[in-house]
């Protein structure tokens, strides 16, 4: 099942609706990398609220999305990781190091907005 990617201002929002196969994840990665450049987006939000498990492959793909997007000039925020998922992930030693996280979509948009305002001269 393909993941819909919405454009909201200069932010791309990928809202994952159901459990994804590894192939779906890779498609999502390629699609996002393509659109970030094409639509000149500055931010990417991946919403995983609907997922009740994030395994090592999914985590690695999310990291891949974040690094690719950064190279193409956009900041990535993963939003909506559920408490149970977060707990399971740290038990497995998966921490999404280097990727911004936020509670939900609203927070993620807020985070990107704050970064694009203040972050230009600091973190970039």
């Amino acid at each position, binding site marked *: 099942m393909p993941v819909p990617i919405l454009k909201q201002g200069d932010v791309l929002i990928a809202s994952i609706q159901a459990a994804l196969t590894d192939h779906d994840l890779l498609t999502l990665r390629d699609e996002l990398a393509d659109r970030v450049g094409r639509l000149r987006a500055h931010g990417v939000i991946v919403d995983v609220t609907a997922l009740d498990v994030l395994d090592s492959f999914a985590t690695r793909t999310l990291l891949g999305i974040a690094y690719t997007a950064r190279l193409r000039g956009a900041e990535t925020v993963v939003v909506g*990781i559920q*408490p149970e998922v*977060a*707990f399971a992930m*740290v038990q497995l030693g998966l*921490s999404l190091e280097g990727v911004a*996280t936020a*509670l939900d979509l609203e927070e*993620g948009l807020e985070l990107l907005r704050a970064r694009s305002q203040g972050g230009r001269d600091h973190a970039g």
Partner: protein
Amino acid sequence: MADRQVAERNLMAEMQITDANIERRKKMVGLTAADLSRISGLKEIVLAHVDESTATFFEFLAGLEEAKGLVSKRDLMERARQLKSEHLAAMVQAHYDRHYVEQRIVLGLLYSEAGLDTRAFLGACHALLKNTGMTSMKHFERSPLEGFESFMSLKKIAFFDIGVIMDVLVFERERVIRQQQEAIRELSTPVLQIRDRLLLLPIIGVIDTNRARLITESLLRAIRDNRAKMVVMDVTGVASIDSRVANHLLQTVSAARLMGALVIVTGVSSEVAQSLVALGIELTKVNTVGDLQGGVEEAERLLGYRVVQTPPAAAQSS
């Protein structure tokens, strides 16, 4: 009745009474095949005096203040009487398996329910054994040695039963302690909101794997429910932090981060800090601030709060 049976099965599992454990228990009282045949030899004598022996047991208890909980309750007493005479009959069948132990657990649970004192129980057991001993010795009047030996074999199985029943009594008594520990554990991991989107997590006492799990779970839930962005975790009350505890804390911090909340750790005492350094545990990935006040101030700053002191409000009563 069905509920009771389920309870007994569960208790057996909880107490880890398995077939292997039962064999072990037999070995511990020194039960051998020779004992079994001698016990079979006593069968008729014991069976003939079951009522009398049961009566001895409960008469002994009736004279004791400590057994009031059992003696004063009619329904419990009647069940206990019945179970006890069944017990005596089963004792001389010389077949001690899982089912046999299960029946003893039923009796133990009944005693526990009645709050029977362990010493009173032992006294009554002794009275019962004496009574049984006398009857069997009378029967073996001609060959006292054989009689004594038979009785000693029976005594082994009596000790086996006493062992099981005492275990039940102790296990049930400790159940209260276990429940209280559980309650204390849950009470001792509060997550408090001290400002909009700012949570305080004071940790006090010893952190083991179980508790770390509880702490993390309740923190993550609180982050979602309060939409928190910052968490101040205060470890002033944690006496010592070794590598395991540090690892638990790190896991909590990264789990919170996955939900978009930043954790500030405060209250690492100088002893704890030194032992962490000595152990070579790096907490460099974690934001640390000296004390709770500093941590809260830092969190407020990051959230964009500015605390301004105004002239103190006039006291309400004058």
